[in-house]
């Protein structure tokens, strides 16, 4: 195994995640490099979503250590969690948009939470919404959008803060092929700008062979795609 520690943005050391007696992840050790394009695949219940949750501290590890951008998130205190999450752009399978806020407000929330100035927020949000083709709908509420449009907004929200890492959980799971292609094109674009992309998916057709690494999970264990 090559020591990739200096270039790794995420490092997992013997990570276990248990729900009661059941292991969701079992002894996972993995390095993810800066600007890497990583697909985490496996059947339902393999542990893909759990892995992403551990990375954004949606869940705590049962055993082991996780380093994200040099910070040991297994030992992070409550106040450090928002700081960690601002380094990440998260795309959820169910979009997780606030239904009572407009498209603009949903995307702007990330920058507001980070304490950015209103003028900068407006400029940045408009720019990102233009990129994902949602500038015309920025006053719309999420329930009035199609699934593909909602996912574009979710992508805009994930990238508006210029995160180092983008975590995407089944980003095309409920989309038709055309919408899925648009979302993946956005992610490719952000990857080309230097972001590390981690996509959890069971859809093998999404995998960019040759340019991406694939980690395959089965019952919480890693079957392939070990540390570089």
């Amino acid at each position, binding site marked *: 195994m090559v020591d990739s520690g200096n270039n790794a943005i995420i490092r997992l050391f013997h990570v276990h995640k248990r729900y009661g007696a059941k292991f969701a992840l079992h002894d996972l050790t993995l390095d993810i490099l800066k600007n890497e394009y990583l697909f985490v695949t496996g059947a339902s219940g393999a542990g893909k979503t759990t892995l992403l949750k551990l990375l954004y501290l949606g869940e705590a590890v049962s055993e082991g250590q996780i380093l994200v951008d040099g910070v040991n998130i297994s030992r992070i205190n409550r*106040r450090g969690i*928002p*700081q960690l999450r601002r380094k990440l752009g998260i795309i959820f399978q169910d979009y*997780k948009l*606030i239904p*009572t*806020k407009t498209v603009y407000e949903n995307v702007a929330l990330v920058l507001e*939470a980070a304490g950015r100035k209103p003028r900068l927020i407006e400029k940045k949000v408009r720019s990102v919404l233009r990129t994902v083709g949602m500038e015309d709908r920025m006053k719309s509420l999420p329930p009035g959008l199609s699934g593909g449009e909602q996912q574009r907004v979710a992508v805009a929200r994930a990238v508006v803060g210029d995160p180092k890492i983008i975590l995407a959980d089944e980003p095309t799971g409920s989309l038709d092929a055309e919408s899925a292609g648009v979302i993946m094109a956005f992610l490719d674009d952000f990857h080309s700008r230097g972001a590390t992309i981690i996509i959890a998916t069971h859809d093998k057709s999404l995998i960019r062979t040759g340019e991406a690494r694939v980690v395959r999970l089965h019952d919480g264990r890693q079957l392939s795609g070990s540390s570089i």
Partner: protein
Amino acid sequence: MRRFYQRAIKDILENRFLTTVSVITIALSIMIAAAFALFFINAGEIVNLWQKGIRMMVYLKPDTSEAGRLDTKYRLQGIAGVQEARFISKKEAIEKLKTQMQHHAALLDNLKENPLPEAFEVYLQPSARNSDELAFLAERITALSTVEEVEYGQQWIQRFTNIISLFRLAGYGIGALFFMATVFIVANTIRLVLYSRRDEIEIMRLVGATDRFIKIPFYLQGMIQGGLGTLIGLLILLIGYLSLTTHFNQSVSSDLISIQFFSEFICAAIFLGGVVVGWLGCWVSLKQFMKT
């Protein structure tokens, strides 16, 4: 901060029903508690006025000679706490009574003999106008050989003061009860808003919002509710006060007794108290909610 205010106002408008219920309850609580306070302030003022007018009537024995009367006056004025002792003759006493009982003056005219005793009207120094001093003075004056009886309004003033004290105690209890009830109501209103928006709060956390960022608009919301409720409560009380005093002034010639409203300073303090109650209610529910 402007952004937080905007979010708080938006939340209030989106949860109009809950906010209205909360504001009305705060207004009622503040109104009732403040009405009690107003009663105590005015009752205390009346007691003070009465205490200022406290005097003793020292009735002399029927057979007291001129020399005995002069001696009594001398001795009365020598007692610590006595400001002045004014002699009231039998004649002056009956004339005074006739003035007071104008409709029954004929009855008094028909009396063969003036039954009223000679007396001294004893005015007291401010330091002696309390129940303990009064009792002590009365005891000393009664011990004088020429004195038949000492009469003063101490007993009913004491009774009135006791009633006021009882009301005050009840007022403190009720005030504390309303304070807790108001905090509880604001806490529950905010809690309901928090639960109705728990998904939104969860999303905010996931995109990197700090607890402070999430909490501030709720605190502002609680403080606005508290302040608004207090203003409405005080306004209702002021309207009640104005209509009562108009009625009171028409029915009673009250140069001595005038009902007063809170000073601007106390109004400001009550308003601030309402804001603090709103904040406290918010703090209680956020403390519980943010742990989850």
